[in-house]
Structures are given as C-alpha cells and as structure tokens.
C-alpha cells in the first residue's frame, strides 16, 4: 500500500470517533502548551539572570585574577593583588585578542560609611566609570527599557566627578543620605592601616538582591585605589563580543597569559554567579518534573485512545487483512494514525502556547521573586529549541504508545477479527 493510501486511511480513521480523538488531541495540546509556556518562562528567567549577571552585576564574561586570590587574597592581599604594572601588561595582552570588547581593572573593598551621626558597614566595587557604562550596555531588553520598571537598576558614575559614590537604595535610605552629601568612609589599606576619605553621594541604585541592597557601593577605581592605598587591582573584568565564545576565549587567554609568564586564573560568569546556577538547576529540575508528568499523560492518553480504537475496529482490521493488508501494514496504519493525532495535538499545543504567551506578556504582570529587591515582569519567551525538542519527543512517544495495541491488532487471527462483535 502506498504512503498516500496509508495517510488517507489514518487521517480518516481519526474522524471515526471524533469525540475521543478530540479529547486525546486536547490532552496532548494542553500538555504541549504547559511545557512550551514553562520552557518560555524559564528561558526568560535564564536570559534575564544571564544579562543580570554579565551586565547588571558587572561580572562581564570572564574574570581574571592571580591564582589563589579567591582563597588567600584576604589574608595576604599584597601577594595576590595585581600591581598597576601587571594590570597594564595583562590588559594589553588581553585587549589584543580579537573578540575582546573590553578589559577593565576592578578593586573590591569594604569598610564603614557614616552620615556624621551613624555608621554602617559597606561593600564596594571600584571600577572605571566609562567601563561601568560599557559593561551595562545590553542589561535591559528594549521592552524592559521602555517599561521603565528597571530604571533603578542602572547605575552611572560620572567620569567628571572623581569622588562620587553610588550607594544602593537600602543603604541610601538607611543613613538618610541626600545626593551630593559628603559621606566619610573608613577602610583598611592593603598594608593594614586605617584610612578615611569622603565620598560624594550620587544617585542610589537598586542592587537587585535584598541581601546587598543595604550595604553596596560603586565608586571610581581611582577613589577605591586611594582608599586601600594600592594602585593596582584585585582582578580584571572582560567583556566579549560574542558570549558563546566565553569558554573558547578562556582557553585561549589561559594559554596566552601562561606563555607570557602570568599565573592567572580565569573564571566564567557562570562560575562566579552562584545565584544563576542555583536558579538554573532548580528550574531545570522543575522542568524535568513537569515534562515527565506531561509525557506520561500523553503516553497514557494515546495508548488508551489507540487501544479503544483497535478494539472498536477489530472487524475492519480483519477485513483489511483478508483483502491483502499485511500484519506490518496494520501496525503501520495504526502507528501512523497515532503519529498524526500526536502531530495535530502538538500543533494545537503550539498555537495555544503562542496565544497564552501573547496574553501573559500583554497583561504586564509583575511579581517579586524571593530574595529580590524589586519586582520583575512575568514574561514568557518562545524557546524554539525546547519547543522543537518537545515536538519531536512527543511525536516519537505518541507513536510508540500506539505500537503495542497496533501489534496486538495485527497478530489477531483474521477469522477471529472478522467475527468480532
């Protein structure tokens, strides 16, 4: 029997018991839409977190520091910090590599900040103001920029204001700061001496993380260097032209710097962003759980539907066998029918995904995730890769679910099938 005949018979077969076909199709469609929407939601979360880590937390794509800095740097900063000369040499080597968009030194510090009446601890990042602006390029999507709800996340140091510091919103409120007010900061220098300097309070920003929002400060690198009395940096941050080249660039730079005599450790933004990894792992597990449930429902729906179909059409199967359809033809016919049902269900599910996605995105729903300082919009992306994967897997599983009932039908003696009531 040629393909067109199989296809016609299978398609017409679906119309035999329309209600049952529709119920099975809807079960597949809703399952597909559940997976498609959740995949789209997590895709949006992953994308947002990636942008938040690379551009929002200013991690860049790669971070370079002396090997051991993370473990021993606090106890022995002089040994593990990068001197101004080292910063210059490494920066030159790294910047010459095609694909590196930006390389900038960074310096972390902590201490006490006061409003003249009360003091509190702070954690600060020293960064060159122009580099800070470049690192933040791309932190918001066009929709997020126009929505305005993320305006507080953008932080800008003015290169013309050498002692300007940007406090996080919580810290700004805690010490009742006002903009352009001078706030004394007390820190420990690299040599262990106390050092104090005034910073001019700039526009507060949302740290994005509730734990950091009452203690974080950005300041110009030069001011940070003055505070710790060290002209170098503790690390270099790299921004790449293509995020997909992160791993390849790490390998290339590790080799290049080692060849130049530098014992440098390079970390990717994923390795440094624990939050991203935790959220990714958690959502991957939830996705796997939902996927398994939906797949089970699809398999059971299709197997049940095809099992009933086979029983109802036993006499027809007997007739087809009598007039010349081989056993393999019967199996092929019913698995094709199941494949068509699954494909139609997936197509309906895809349509449902697009409609619900449009509705959710248009509704402009905001929510505040745990540990977040600000609300975020509930947005659903179109995760083409996982939708395609779901489409393919469901089609395979839906077809396999019909295999056993179809084989049972094919193996029935023709006479018994013809006599079925």
């Amino acid at each position, binding site marked *: 029997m040629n393909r067109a005949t199989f296809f016609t018979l299978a398609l017409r077969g679906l119309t035999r018991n329309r209600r049952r076909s529709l119920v099975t199709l809807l079960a597949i469609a809703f399952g597909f839409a559940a997976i498609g929407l959740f995949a789209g939601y997590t895709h949006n979360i992953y994308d947002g977190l990636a942008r938040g880590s690379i551009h929002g937390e200013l991690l860049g794509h790669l971070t370079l520091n002396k090997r051991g800095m993370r473990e021993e740097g606090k106890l022995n900063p002089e040994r593990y910090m990068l001197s101004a000369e080292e910063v210059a040499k490494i920066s030159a080597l790294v910047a010459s590599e095609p694909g590196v968009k930006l390389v900038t030194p960074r310096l972390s510090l902590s201490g006490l900040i006061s409003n003249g009446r009360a003091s509190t601890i702070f954690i600060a990042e020293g960064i060159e103001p122009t580099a800070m602006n470049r690192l933040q390029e791309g932190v918001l999507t066009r929709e997020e920029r126009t929505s305005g709800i993320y305006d507080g996340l953008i932080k800008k140091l003015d290169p013309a204001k050498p002692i300007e510091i940007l406090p996080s919103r919580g810290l700004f409120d805690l010490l009742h700061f006002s903009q352009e007010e001078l706030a004394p900061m007390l820190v420990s220098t690299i040599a262990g001496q106390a050092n104090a300097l005034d910073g001019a309070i700039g526009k507060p920003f949302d740290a994005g993380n509730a734990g950091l929002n009452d203690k974080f400060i950005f300041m110009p690198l030069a001011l940070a260097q003055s505070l710790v009395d060290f002209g170098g940096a503790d690390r270099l941050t790299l921004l790449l032209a293509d995020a997909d080249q992160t791993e390849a660039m790490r390998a290339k730079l590790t080799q290049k710097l080692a060849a130049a005599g530098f014992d440098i450790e390079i970390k990717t933004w994923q390795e440094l962003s624990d939050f991203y990894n935790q959220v990714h792992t958690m959502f991957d597990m939830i996705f796997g759980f939902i996927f398994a449930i939906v797949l089970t429902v699809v398999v059971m729906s299709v197997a049940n539907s095809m099992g009933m179909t086979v029983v109802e059409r036993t006499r027809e199967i007997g007739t087809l066998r009598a007039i010349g359809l*081989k056993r393999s033809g019967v199996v092929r016919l019913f698995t094709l029918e199941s494949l068509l049902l699954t494909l139609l269900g997936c197509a309906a599910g895809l349509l449902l995904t697009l409609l619900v996605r449009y509705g959710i995105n248009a509704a402009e729903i905001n929510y505040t995730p745990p540990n977040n300082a600000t609300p975020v919009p509930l947005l659903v992306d179109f995760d083409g890769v996982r939708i395609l994967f779901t489409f393919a897997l469901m089609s395979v599983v839906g077809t396999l679910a019909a295999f056993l009932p179809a084989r049972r039908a094919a193996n029935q003696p023709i006479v018994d099938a*013809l006599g079925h009531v």
Partner: protein
Amino acid sequence: MSAPTPPLLRLHDVHRRFHLGETTIEALKGISLDIHSGEFLAVWGPSGSGKSTLMNILGLIDAPSSGSVQLDGRDTHAMADDELTGFRSHKIGFVFQSFNLVPVLSAKENVQLPLQIRGGDLIEAAALAERALIDVGLADFMHSRPDKLSGGQRQRVAIARALAVAPRVVIADEPTANLDSENSAMIVELMREMNRAKGVTFIFTTHDPRLLAHVDRKILLRDGAIAADEESV
C-alpha cells in the same frame, strides 16, 4: 483427447478442529473437494454444519488442522503469512455477510482500497473502481459513504470491491443473510452475471434454498462433512 483442466481450488482430506477448554470440536471432517475455474457454486446446509469454516479455509484466511489446500496448483500450507496475504490479494475477492465496508471511505474509495493495498497505481485503481461500480449498477453512488447506502447497495459495493482486483475466485460467506428476499435474489443474480461476464469463480454460502436455483453446483454440508455435491441441471 485433451488433458483434464486442473482445478482452481483443491481440498484434500481437510479437517478443522477447534479447542474450547478441554473440549475439541471438529468443524470439518475430512473434506475433499475440487472447484474449477468459472464455477458458480453454493455451499448450503443448516447452522453449525461447517459452511463458514469451509469458506474461511477456501479463502485462505484460516488454515486446516490437517489436510491440504491448493489454489491455482500451489499448496498454501507452506506459505508464510506475508506470502499468503499477497497471494490472497491477487487471487481472492471477499464478500461478507455484514458488508464490512470501511465507513469513513466512499463507495469508490472502498472499492479501490484492495487495489491500493496491493500497491497499484492510484489513477489506475480509481479507474478500475469506477468500472467495477458501474458494473454493479452503482454509477450514481460512487462518492456516497456506506451509511448513505441501503443494505443491497452496500453489498453491491462489496461485490465491486471483490471484483475490482480481478480475482480468480470470490468467496462470499452468507452474502444475503442481512438482506430481504428481493435484495437477496438481486445480489445472487448480480453475482451470477459477473460470473458469466468475467468468468470469475463464485463460491457462496446460504441458508436460503430459493437461491440455489441460480447455481451450477451446490454442496450440502452436514456436521462438517459433504452430504451431497450436485450439479444443477
């Protein structure tokens, strides 16, 4: 003197036993039978006499427990299922008591189905199906689905389906059992016409002695054995 024509179908000492729990029922008890090409033959007898079992074996959709069946000189016993299915699709047409048409296909699609199953060209199959439906007087019902046809019309479609593949033999098990007497006579008459026009062998079973008037040969089965095998005058 010319050699005698070999039979189209030859059954030799065919037994068919069914096992129901510990009980064994012997539905056919050593049937030996030759059926020649072009015959129009009725198998008749009371219920439970083994008519349907014999028809199933003649149609190669069941195998004897012992004995042999030859169609066109080939012993069917040694054939694997796929070979037997292919053999059936080329040599045998079936007409069933309950018509057994595919309800979601039109009359024409039902008739061309065995041709397509056999792997024939779609256009050629459609043309043959149209021809077969015209032959059985259903030119105006080609695109009607079975549920829009009367019982007699459905059985005509079934006969057209059986004949479309140009079989050597048509096996019709109780083709008139679900029809009124007028339609029954018309169906037997139609089969007779086709037998004469196309030279196709017809073997059918019936309860109705009135239909036996049309046949060349009638075989009376009783308790699984041939009680009488008579040529009509």
